[in-house]
């Protein structure tokens, strides 16, 4: 049904979204925990920085990333001096851009889940001489499980749905940076509507299935409701 080039775009998209989600959970969990627990006056500033990709158009993010990661940009000079070369037009560059672009979709659900963990429960664990790490992994993380589910699903799905930034950073290279959304755009621009429909309809079904699954899995179960 799909051509090899289109399968390649599907595979690339899944790899990009999967890797981005894993990295975002690793980076986003400590950020969300800090944001949920801190009383620092700097909290609104950090929360705003995390939320920025929700507000900024993808062209702004793409444009600045292109400058930052370019040969004259600070990030570009750093990666070059480390012998990593430059990030634009590479898969690694797409991962970096996606992590930034999807950051709020992972951090915000986690933050809300951590904020819902009762302080008294954490204190009770502390009086039982659980170490801070033990408290976090044995108490906070299990209680915040729905937050982790939401964060993972939204982070993955939003990366799949991203377009403007990947087009600008990726350069539309087959098998390397041509993800699904870009492949669909290509078909539409070339007025290959039949091919565009196949991929685009697939995206619509994917998005619907993912979101329904998310809402079903996060529906509060009776025994979990507070008495």
């Amino acid at each position, binding site marked *: 049904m799909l051509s090899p080039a289109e399968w390649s775009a599907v595979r690339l998209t899944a790899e990009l979204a999967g890797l981005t989600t894993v990295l975002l959970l690793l980076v986003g969990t400590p950020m969300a925990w800090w944001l949920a627990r801190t009383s620092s006056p700097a909290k609104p500033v950090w929360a705003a920085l995390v939320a920025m990709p929700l507000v900024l158009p993808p062209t702004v993010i793409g444009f600045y990333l292109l400058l930052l990661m*370019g040969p004259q940009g600070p990030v570009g000079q750093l990666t070059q001096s480390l012998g990593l070369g430059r990030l*634009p*037009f590479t898969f690694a560059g797409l991962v970096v851009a996606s992590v930034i672009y999807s950051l709020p979709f992972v951090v915000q659900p986690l933050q809300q889940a951590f904020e819902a963990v009762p302080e008294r429960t954490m204190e009770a664990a502390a009086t039982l001489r659980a170490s801070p790490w033990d408290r976090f992994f044995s108490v906070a993380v299990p209680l915040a499980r729905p937050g982790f589910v939401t964060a993972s699903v939204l982070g993955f799905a939003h990366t799949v749905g991203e377009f403007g930034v990947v087009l600008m950073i990726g*350069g539309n290279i087959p098998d390397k940076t041509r993800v699904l959304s870009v492949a669909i755009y290509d078909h539409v*621009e*070339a007025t290959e509507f039949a091919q565009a429909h196949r991929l685009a309809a697939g995206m619509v079904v994917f998005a619907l299935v993912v979101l329904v699954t998310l809402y079903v899995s996060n529906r509060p179960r009776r025994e979990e409701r507070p008495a």
Partner: protein
Amino acid sequence: MRRPFIAALLALAASLAHAGEVQVAVAANFAGPLARIGEGFTAATGHVLKISAGATGKFYTQIISGAPFEVLIAADDETPKKLAAGGHAVAGTNFTYAIGKLVLWSAQPGFVDDQGAVLASDKVKHVAIANPKVAPYGAAAMEVIKARGLSDAVTPKLVTAESIAQAYQFVATGNAELGFVALSQVAVPGRPTPGSYWAVPANLYGEIRQDAVLLKAGADNPAAKALLDYLKSDAAKKLIREFGYGL
């Protein structure tokens, strides 16, 4: 004292009554020149241009889906013909307003030699082109690469931009060492030429005839017809040549 003021007001009112607006879709490579031509057009006629710049292929899709553009200033001659054949443009109004010239450009001064030999260099990691499926300058770039016998060497280095404007951006930010762009983007009158470029000889690629056409949405708009007439005027032609197009 009063009378000249009233006369001026009346003149203004009269020009406003006649002044119209034209929704123009323009190929990215001609956006700069059109802005300049638009100044002269507005001064001469009082009509105002509302300009949208982008890839010609994208405009085609938008126009057949009912986009309110009244004039298309395309990067090729195929799209206006197709639009007229499909009833989306007024048949017989298409004409060639410019012939596009391709350059191999780098943002670094002295990087590109006058024979374009740098295209085969190992120093080049990325070559930006506009999407050859939809952009005539991209298709022309592919012809040049093939004519030079560099298809195998250069194809893995190609980065495809959605339009010639994005190809320019990839090169201007230094992320691509080289890129095929329009001469009109590099040789802007009254501005020093950035970096270095090779004007690709015209025998290496098929002629890029750029046509304009009156679209169905503008069929009854006198301002839209006036714009097409103005594009054929000597004043406009002079500017078009200054921007590095053939005519």
